[in-house]
């Protein structure tokens, strides 16, 4: 870990200024990913701007009937918030599927969005990596790529976004509030993270100096028929090989609306609106679920070790949609998958 200087911000404006003025500066909040990356020398900020004292730690109801979650709300507080448990159980479940209780206690809502990939090569400064050092190459493509992307990857990068929470946020159609040197703006969740393309060093669409201030949830929906199904290499405390957030609104017997997003498969939480549309108006059935899976995976591509993730994702989508349709969401403490 490199030495760095420290600035404690007392207002959002001050924090933004501190980062704008120092090209080596980075915001820090929970630190659960950034401090780790600094120890690996993957991140080498010259200055950390501590934003934990900013007033961004509340969950407020919005005029539209949704919730605005302050960027500093810890993951665990969010998961166990009464309103979230009651009205957005998919989000609560996804958060509880991730990391450990200790990490969820420290990690923040904004920081969860800004988690960096778990790609082995990204983490190992002894190897090339286009995301870490643009232009240096991507050994993962021909190397060890068990955990890598099957959707939306590029020649430059096949890394995945590791968050569970973000998969639920994508499915729920959240909005990200940001503030920067040029003022405030909102970003639809699907546009927040980006695909690697030729610039894999950019994980998201934030500009320099912009800070996530809140994540807004629309008016509650999908409170009954939903699930977050996470598949991984051990039964807890592991990143997803594939995860599925599924939510359904039934209109009588048929599916009125569906939401479907995947984690562990792409450079961003992978929501597929075409697959969602395919389910609309259909009776919940294996064939409808399988068709949705086929749509999600129509352009899927493996790189060797991760080929199995295509089939795993296909089966996980069908299972998750089945759980959602039946109103029997996966309980994260229950390791038997219903």
């Amino acid at each position, binding site marked *: *870990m*490199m*030495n760095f200087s420290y600035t404690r911000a007392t207002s959002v404006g001050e924090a933004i200024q501190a980062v704008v003025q120092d090209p080596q500066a980075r915001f820090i909040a929970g630190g659960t990913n950034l401090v780790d990356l600094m*120890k690996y*020398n993957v991140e*080498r900020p010259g200055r950390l701007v501590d934003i934990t004292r900013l007033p961004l730690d509340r969950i407020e109801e919005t005029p539209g009937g949704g919730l605005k979650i302050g960027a500093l709300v810890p993951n665990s507080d969010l998961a166990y918030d009464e309103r979230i448990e009651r009205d957005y159980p998919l989000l609560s479940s996804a958060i509880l599927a991730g990391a450990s209780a200790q990490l969820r206690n420290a990690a923040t809502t904004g920081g969860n969005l800004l988690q960096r990939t*778990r790609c*082995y*090569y990204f*983490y*190992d*400064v*002894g*190897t090339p990596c286009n995301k870490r050092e643009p232009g240096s190459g991507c*050994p993962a493509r*021909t*190397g*060890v790529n*068990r*955990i890598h992307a099957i959707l939306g990857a590029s020649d430059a990068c096949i890394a995945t976004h590791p968050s569970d929470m973000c998969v639920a946020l994508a499915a729920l159609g959240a909005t990200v509030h940001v503030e920067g040197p040029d003022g405030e703006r909102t970003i639809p969740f699907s546009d927040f993270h980006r695909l690697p393309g030729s610039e894999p060093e950019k994980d998201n669409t934030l500009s320099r100096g912009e800070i996530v201030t809140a994540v807004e949830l629309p008016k509650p929906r999908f409170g009954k028929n939903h699930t977050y199904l996470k*598949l991984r*290499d*051990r*039964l*807890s*405390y*592991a*990143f997803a*090989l594939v995860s599925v957030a599924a939510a359904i609104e039934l209109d009588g017997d048929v599916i009125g609306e569906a939401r479907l997003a995947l984690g562990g498969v792409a450079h961003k939480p992978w929501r597929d609106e075409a697959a969602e549309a395919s389910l609309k108006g259909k009776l919940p059935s294996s064939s409808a679920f399988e068709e949705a899976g086929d749509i999600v995976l129509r352009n899927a591509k493996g790189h060797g070790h991760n080929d*199995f993730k295509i*089939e*795993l994702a296909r*089966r*996980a989508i069908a*299972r998750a949609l089945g759980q959602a349709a039946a109103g029997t969401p996966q309980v994260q403490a229950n*390791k*038997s*998958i*219903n």
Partner: protein
Amino acid sequence: MSNVHPYVGRATPRVDGPLKVSGLATYAAEFFAEDMLYAAAVPATIAKGRIKRIDLSAAKGAPGVVEILTHENRPEIPEDDAPYLNDMVAVPGSPFRPLRNDKVLYSGQAIALVIADSHENARHAASLVTAEFEVETPTVDVADARSTAYEPPVPRDGIPPPPPPRGDAEATFKGSEIRLKHDYRVAPEHHNPMELQATTVVWEGGGALTIHNKTQGVINPKNYICSVFSLDPEKVRVVSPFVGGAFGMALRPHYDLFLAVLAAIKLERSVRLVLTRGQMWTMGWRPDTLQTVALSADADGKLTSVSHHAIQATSQFEDYQEPIVNWSGLIYDCPNVSLKYELAKLDVSTPSDMRAPGATTGVYALEAAMDELAYELKMDPLELRLKNYAEKDGNDDKPFSSKELRAAYEQGAKRFGWSERSPEPRSMKEGKELVGYGVATGCWEAMMQPHSARAALSADGRLEVACGTADIGTGTYTILAQIGADAFGLPIEEVTAKVGDTSLPMAPVEGGSWAAASAGNAVQLACAALKEELLKAARGLDDSPLANADVAHVTFADGKIALTSDPEKSVSYADALKAAGSERLEAKGDFAPDGEFAEKYASYTHSAVFAEVRVDEELGVVRVERIVSAVAAGKILNLATARSQILGGVVMGVGMALHEESVWDKSLGRIMNANLGEYHVPAHADIHDIDVIFVDEEDKANPMGVKGLGEIGIVGAAAAVANAVFHATGKRIRELPITIDKLL
């Protein structure tokens, strides 16, 4: 409260428990010295080649840096191998020595040591060291080195090469109708004890060093350091009272020890070096091994031939060896056996003993093949094992000193409910999950080592038992205290056990499951000698009520020596000490294994492991629902710590079956998942019910009848799980770990 004799044989709580649960047990990196410096090791980023240039300019100017050592500027170190071979656990070859020259032998090899005034400054400066390399293409996969495999020309001390063939396994196999031959592979594993490898060297002045090193036996780092750095053994003391897990990785001296001592001597300062978790992948490991097992049997299931061939990875510079195939010649009764063991060199660090080295790997393959044979024969896998029960060690043609494996099979099966197993694969289901039952046999050699111990009684009535062994979590402190307490009829609270210090009587490294038998018997002997001394003193009192008593006719209890036939006649320990004219009476015990007995008998521990798994076939998810491990391991000294040893072995076996795998990038030669987030060891959620049974077994290989328990818990555990997965799914996965992708 706990003054209930005998302590031995009961579930006595750990005597070091209160210290451990309150955070006061001190491990190697938790000793402090004035003006101590902190070191950080800089790892090579290539696996094979040569350092062309190391750039220290930025690092040297960094704050707090005191020194940076590389192969170019280090103090002189011996060139020849001999000093480095002063390591009880050395293997044939040329031992690795850090900063020797410009050659890089494996990825992560330390190429520089930064020493600074704080941990943070050392870490910062280490991140500024850069190097240029001349890179050669590494070989890191044993399958790629198969064609270069060779039989080890020099056997490793203590590791028997495979016995010569008996009968004609190949011809029998060829002529058999019922036969199978399959390849098995266990992924390379790394020990990953929770404590990081670390050394704190305290510079005591005048060239004296006190070293706190994570080690399984303080004598080993002491001998090594004295020999490598030509130090006066009188001036070097190694003190390591607590060890945060080791599982074999802390048997040999590692580079943290070498580098910390090198720096301390050069700077004449105290130095601490704690390796990073990533660097825990730059030393010993359970080697990648290719195995082929061929079995044939008659229609009744009687084995007619067993062949087992293993090719095991080692480093370019040492021939690490472990007994992988020998088990296949002794676990079952078979007239035709052919065993072959070869090595293949890779550009990796030297593998090392990892919990039940060799047996874990080899018995897995044998037990998987036995399971396959049972299904081939349409025979209950447990029945097949009973059918081929070995009444003697076929390798050495010796009877067993004791073997209650049959009782282990019976009691384990009963507790598990094996009879409820439906024979056909895929025939048991609950909810969406397939249910599978699996069984496997475990086996480990019951070894002993020469061992000394000391017992001392003081005027305050306390007993101290001490020897230089280690307690790596095994419960050594507790069993030694139990033995002492029983010998003198004392409450265990009045007994102090001491280990982990080179000032204590000589002990070998703690490993191979020999510590309980060796240290236990040594302490027992020391206590017996002390009793004689004490009685002698008591007899010497004026008008001693014990004037003519001998040790066979007195009882040591309640703080006094009393005539067993007439307890009124007694002398208190305090009076006896007074008579001896001493505040503290001390005696030594030297235990040596009975060589004559070992000539006549083969001594092994055995286990029968039963596992139930649940498999979500569609999603490839395996859960281990429960495991019953029935163990025959002679006298059990402490039911609580013994049970914990088996639990731990079983959990590591579950990891081997389902989770653990160190993954190399074949072109870079680097391990890509060298962290606990991506190298998965079982977590709480992975472990459900584990039931441990100790079957009664009387053994005469040593006076206490102890066989040892550190290894046996893991042997067979992975095979039982893998066999259960087959029973559940009908899929035979012959490469561990059984991850989701393999079951889809």
